[in-house]
């Protein structure tokens, strides 16, 4: 849940990058880490296996500056993609204010994408959250691969986007679509936050 401090005028939100193994979640964070100036980010923590697969999470704290008079900080997390690590994946998801679903555009990974989406729904449900109210965007990563190996964004949208979430194409390895995705999820999260506080004020 977002932390809002009206005294210090700070907002801290947690964004989780979710998706099947090797879809590019960590790559997104690594790209952001490499591009954001030192004074706008903290150290990136990566708890990974020897073969560089995310074991528990990657974590990157960001300062986005002032939005509507509030200093806005985001905590970006990734989860391990392998089915085996569901117990730890569930832990990382706890308290998420928004989710970026990073789908692997490769045709042969479609089932993995679907399984991961279902897993996300399941884990969110177990945390007692209605997934329809959770801000989410979908990133179709690896759109740079040869056409014959991948599904086009429209096809991926048809296959995966039951929620009608905002979708973006990306090539995270080379940075395409990474910041656009981050901006999109930031906007969704902040919009929801302002809606909730407006409701709270009215109520």
């Amino acid at each position, binding site marked *: 849940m977002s932390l809002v401090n009206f005294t210090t005028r700070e907002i801290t939100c947690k964004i989780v990058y979710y998706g099947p193994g090797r879809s590019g979640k960590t790559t997104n964070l690594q790209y952001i880490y490499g591009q954001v100036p030192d004074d706008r980010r903290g150290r990136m923590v990566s*708890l990974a296996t020897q*073969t560089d697969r995310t074991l528990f999470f990657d974590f990157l704290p960001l300062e986005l500056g002032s939005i509507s008079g509030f200093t806005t900080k985001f905590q970006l997390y990734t989860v391990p993609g392998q*089915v085996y690590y*569901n117990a730890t994946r569930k832990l990382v998801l706890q308290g998420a204010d928004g989710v970026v679903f990073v789908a692997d555009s490769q045709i042969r990974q479609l089932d993995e994408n679907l399984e991961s989406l279902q897993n996300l729904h399941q884990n969110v449900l177990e945390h007692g959250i209605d997934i329809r109210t959770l801000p989410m965007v979908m990133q179709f990563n690896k759109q740079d691969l040869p056409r014959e190996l991948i599904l086009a964004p429209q096809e991926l949208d048809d296959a995966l986007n039951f929620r009608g979430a905002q979708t973006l194409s990306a090539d995270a390895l080379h940075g395409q679509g990474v910041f656009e995705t981050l901006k999109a999820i930031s906007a969704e999260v902040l919009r929801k936050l302002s809606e909730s506080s407006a409701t709270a004020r009215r109520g």
Partner: protein
Amino acid sequence: MTTTTVVEAWTEQPLVRFVGQSSARIVVVMTPAGQVLAQHGFTRAVDLMSAAALGAAIMASSGALAQQVGESTFGALYHAGQRHGIHLAACNTPRGRLIVLTVFGRETSIGLVQVFFEEFVIALRQAAPVEEPRGPVLPADFENELNSSLATLFRR
């Protein structure tokens, strides 16, 4: 009746001895990635999988925290519960770095578990084969390795 099951045969004798001496209720021997090499006390693969993933994650988190405070690594963790205690520690063997998760009840104590754990590590080091250099692990292989060890342990 809880049994001891192993993926790698060399772990069996040291594990059986450790369980007998320490009166541990659950023991899991795994790689730092959470892949199980041997276990005692679990009857369901899903429970073992969660415990292994969580144990490996705790060790990874503690390692990262240790680095933040200027330690190279922490030796062991001990969690004291109402009815159970958990001892989590890593050790280096010729087979590579291993993590051992031990869950014990009030019939024993953390002092005894620690004493027998030291002997367990010595026995593992003596029994372990030398780790062969491994080639790069393909994504599909990684998941398969994790799951096949579970299958071996539960004979599925």
